[in-house]
């Protein structure tokens, strides 16, 4: 799949209004990224043991500054520093993060290390012209363990010009590591907002195939096309021919008819 950078680079910033569904807050992309960093910073800081806060402050300041050196190391270290507990947000925190454009379903499942890692990636993206964010994100992803990779996938929709990460996200959909697949396919607004039809359809059929409830796919209803309906019907027929059960939530697709893409 070709990288989509060329297309996105020519799109002037500021055309998109806030779109909570897609998790994009644009118009001034820089400000929104900074806003997200601040929002996540507040949440993460409250969950640090006192001993870890100094490291967090220092790291975040360094990455937000001109030289984003040490992203990969900090990204890896984050889970040991802040722990891997469920975020367990207060109502106020939850409200603040969703207002910043994060998907509710995603933050409700998030953990402290994941939130910290998303904040670190966003911090690097703040106001650095000429930074090859694509390469940086790809490097953190490729060298990451499964939980690091999940955090990268959870961050994609929030990064500036997110459409440039389609190749990476589509690769994650091909993974046999189920938690990785679910990190992009479930509770994540990225695929519905940015995937071409082929990749989106393959992801949805794989969700059916691996027993993932379709209700976890954000934005599915708006992306149902006649082709996806055809694929879902064929899948039901294949299961029936093999003497196997058909997942009942397939009706979310097959009874929808399908919009023209």
């Amino acid at each position: 799949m070709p990288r989509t950078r060329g297309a996105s680079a020519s799109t002037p910033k500021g055309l998109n209004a806030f779109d909570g569904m897609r998790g994009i807050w644009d118009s001034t992309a820089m400000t929104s990224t900074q806003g997200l960093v601040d929002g996540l910073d507040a949440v993460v800081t409250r969950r640090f043991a006192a001993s870890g806060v100094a490291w967090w402050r220092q790291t975040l300041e360094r990455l937000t500054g001109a030289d984003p050196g040490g992203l990969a190391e900090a990204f890896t270290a984050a889970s040991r520093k802040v722990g891997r507990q469920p975020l367990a947000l207060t109502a106020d925190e939850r409200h603040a993060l969703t207002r910043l454009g994060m998907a509710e379903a995603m933050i409700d499942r998030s953990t402290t290390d994941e939130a910290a890692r998303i904040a670190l990636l966003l911090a690097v993206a703040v106001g650095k012209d000429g930074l090859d964010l694509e390469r940086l994100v790809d490097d953190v992803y490729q060298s990451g363990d499964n939980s690091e990779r999940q955090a990268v996938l959870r961050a994609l929709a929030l990064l500036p010009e997110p459409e440039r990460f389609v190749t990476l996200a589509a690769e994650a959909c091909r993974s046999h590591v189920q938690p990785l697949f679910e990190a992009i396919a479930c509770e994540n607004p990225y695929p519905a907002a940015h995937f071409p039809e082929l990749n989106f359809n393959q992801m949805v059929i794989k969700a059916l195939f691996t027993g993932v409830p379709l209700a976890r796919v954000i934005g599915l209803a708006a992306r149902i096309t006649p082709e996806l309906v055809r694929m879902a019907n064929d899948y039901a027929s294949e299961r029936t021919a093999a003497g196997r059960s058909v997942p009942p939530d397939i009706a979310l697709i097959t009874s929808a008819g399908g919009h023209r893409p």
Partner: protein
Amino acid sequence: MRMFDPHIHMTSRTTLDYQAMADAGITAVVEPSFWLGQPRTHVGTFEDYFRGLLGWERFRASQFGIHHYCTLSINPKEANNARVAQGVIDLLPRYLSKDGVVAVGEIGYDDMTAEEDKYFAAQLELAIRFDLPALVHTPHRDKKRGTERTLALVRDVGFPEERVLVDHNTEETLPLVLATACWAGHSIYPFTKMDEARMVALVRKYGAARILVNSAADWGVSDPLKVPKTVAAMREAGIDEAAIETIVWRNPVAFFGQSGKLDAAELEGSTDVDQRQLFEGNSVLRGQTPVVQGARKPGE
């Protein structure tokens, strides 16, 4: 009965599996190159993988009396990986002509992208150039459409159908494949793809001609004894011995024999099991007493 598992990823299995396979009557395997569960990021790791299939893995199999052959390719999933795909295509000519490489494969479709089209066709061209048959994987998702598209591409490229083995068939795809001159493989898996009882029903309905079964065992939930287990199920269902032997021996030998690299006489005998042998200084033994058996002569 001697058996042939024409699709198994031994690299991800242990010597205990080799021993169990040999005990169950498997004397030959084809190991298609495939992906490792997560995408590779360097072309060099493919080259070492190919060398491992031709070297260490072949030796390991021979230590259990099993003839090991392989097929080489960029697999359908990683055809989408721009970091490596073209590099692997450039690497293949160096390895396709080697002894023991009995087809180009597994190639075919996964997501059915434009890249997959491109590398599928390119590798069929390589198979023509190196006078090899092709082992074609069919996708897990959207399988029927994927199979139709596979057969259409084979036709478009002008690749001889009788030199194509279309693998991982189901009730819905087998009639499509048999309507062409291609061969049809079936992967018998514990939970997905195809099971023994369904396979018996397919053999009852379609017979044995151009039909193969394999375990497709790899690092996933899979069973390297699925070929002997399917033989047992077919026997129990009253399918005659000649038909069973066609499916688990004559067909794979005939199909991969088209490479000119399956020596029938060699296959009929067994490999010399001499576990005292070393491969580049390494033994498969971990403190056990080595087994030494003379080669059986054909018909023995």
